[in-house]
């Protein structure tokens, strides 16, 4: 998988690059709009991460030209502009996703994975991690031999963690994907924390290896062994 990062802020580009490398994606950084446009035209990429405010040529211009030339590489826009109009404009011009700065790195990675997954069937009926098993059809959750009694919200939360197992999940992601709130607010953050504590009590009862881990300042991860 090859990713083109069109971003003029050097530090940010490096961070994204190393995050991609950690997940074994190959990446190329284009520091200007011109360079980005040239590379996107000339080389083949599986994904383009595009900043909107670029020197030389604006991200939206690049996106528009690419789409006019029928280059259908998925594009993820990364920008500090968070107006609804900006989002709509970007998506209308053919972007596949949109992320507002400052963003959480786990969220960027989750979105990239989602873009790569797109179009592939994902009709999984059963999610597993170590001896934890979640059945999406019967909505039964087993930890070893014991059946866990989860509320509806706990079930959705665990399902989300299992679908992203091994990857960090931020509170923003949970707010949007599990609680379906478009905005993260303080009350909801507290709700997420309490809900997570309760889920963890049920899943990681005494005496079994812990699966759900809190990563301070970032979010949560479901993973065997140490986070």
């Amino acid at each position, binding site marked *: 998988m090859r990713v083109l990062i069109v971003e003029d802020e050097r530090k940010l580009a490096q961070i994204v690059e190393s995050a991609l490398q950690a997940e074994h994606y190959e990446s190329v950084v284009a520091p200007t709009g011109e360079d980005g446009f040239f590379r996107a035209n000339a080389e083949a990429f599986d994904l383009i991460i595009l900043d909107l405010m670029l020197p030389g040529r604006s991200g939206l211009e690049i996106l528009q030209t690419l789409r006019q030339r029928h280059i259908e590489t998925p594009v993820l826009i990364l920008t500090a502009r*968070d107006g609804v109009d900006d989002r709509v404009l970007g998506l209308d011009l053919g972007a596949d996703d949109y992320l507002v700065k400052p963003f959480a790195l786990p969220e960027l990675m989750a979105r990239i994975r989602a873009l790569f997954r797109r179009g592939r069937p994902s009709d999984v009926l059963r999610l597993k991690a170590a001896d934890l098993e979640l059945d999406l059809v019967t909505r039964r959750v087993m930890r070893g031999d014991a059946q866990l009694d989860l509320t509806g919200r706990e079930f959705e939360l665990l399902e989300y963690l299992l679908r992203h197992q091994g990857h960090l999940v931020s509170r923003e992601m949970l707010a949007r994907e599990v609680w379906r709130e478009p905005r993260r607010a303080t009350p909801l*953050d507290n*709700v997420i924390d309490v809900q997570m504590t309760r889920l963890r009590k049920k899943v990681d009862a005494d005496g079994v290896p812990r699966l759900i881990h809190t990563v301070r300042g970032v979010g949560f991860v479901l993973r065997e062994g140490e986070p």
Partner: protein
Amino acid sequence: MSWWSTASIRVRLTGWYGVVLFLMMAIYATATFVAVRHEFLEQLDDQLHDDFEAAEGHLIAGADGRIVWSGERHHDPDSDEERGSDVWSVSGEPIYRSTASASLPPAAIAAATAGGRYESLVINRSRWRTLTGTSSVGGRAVVLRASRSEDRVRAQLWEILVVLVLGLPLVVALASLGGYTLARRALTPIDHLASEARRITADRLHERLSVPNPEDEIGRLATVINDTYARLESSFDQLRRFTADASHELRTPLSVIRGLGEMQLNRTRTPDEYKEAIGSMLEEVDRLTSLVDTLLRLSHGDAGTIRLSREALDVGQLVRDVASSLGILAEERQQTLKVDVREDVFVTTDRLVLREAFANVIDNAIKYSPKGSTIVASVRADGERAVVDIVDEGPGIAAEHRRRIFDRFFRLDEGRSRDRGGTGLGLAIAKWAVDVSGGQITVEGRPSGGSVFRIVLPAAAPAIRNPHRDREPQLKGEHV
């Protein structure tokens, strides 16, 4: 016209005053003149009538059947110049002609009647008034004419006219001068007010205009301006406080991040220590991010650039949603969170914005109520309004803080609320959300302790309300 519209109020006032006064005086003078003239001419006719009767007395029928003028000569030569009497027989022969009226043409004998007829004549550019009538002396009919010169009356009338026409502009000019002086005196306090107001700038907003008499017009104006200054001052204060609070809130996480980074780099540490420090830094970044997001949203709201969707929302349902979402927080604190929907009521506004208002107020109630207490959110319709009361059993809010509780960054207890993860913006966001929905949010104390946060919203058309709901009381009720 441009000169007129830029002239000072006192000049324009005087101008209008002069014009109106001139018109009124002109009408008055004309009416006076017309009345006087009518009166003078009437008098003249009366005198003629007297002359006529006197002349009748002077005629005597002689023994020979002739009629003779027996009148004595008047001793007043002036008067004789101006009046005269003439007598003719019915056949037109003159019987008597006075000297004064000698120049007048003979009367029209055939037209003379018993009642007498007044006539005006102009002879040699002098005007005469005559009364011609028939009379009988000793059984013989005669035609008698009394005449008087109009010249004296005309001269008197002319004098009156001259006085009126010349006096009018003089009176108007004098009155305008007086009007100008009065206008200037009346308007001087306004000039004074203006120079005082100019003195009060943004740095001296605590100063006020002096109000010598609050009951008069100028006093009322000054009072209104002072009220405006008071509001301006409080907005400025609020802004100043906000700026100070915002920079404090933004700088605190920044200094923590900076301090942590600097401290970690001053010597080599174990991976666990680094992890701990980085996690701590990220937490501060998180706080900063959500603070900046909230502030941006509030400022978008202030600037009116936020776009809201409008849909009919079931307030009871929305409160139930929020309560079920936040219920877990109340559970953690062994609190009971009840929802009591007494009537179904709908409002038209943005769902997310209204949810945010309810969420922040309920979250606030949960946060500051003691463990094991009860929080009740009730929804009812009150005429054209939807009323949501959120009642808690917390410590309550002192009356002097109630006005500021919705201010940005206002905290009743600095340390405590920060520990509980508050940004100090929750209620400010709630107020903003209620405001943009066209409603009001207030807080009141309860006699038994605790607070009532009341959100009042304009209800949507009653037609959308569900009419069947009242017949199904089992659907109402409590959500725990």
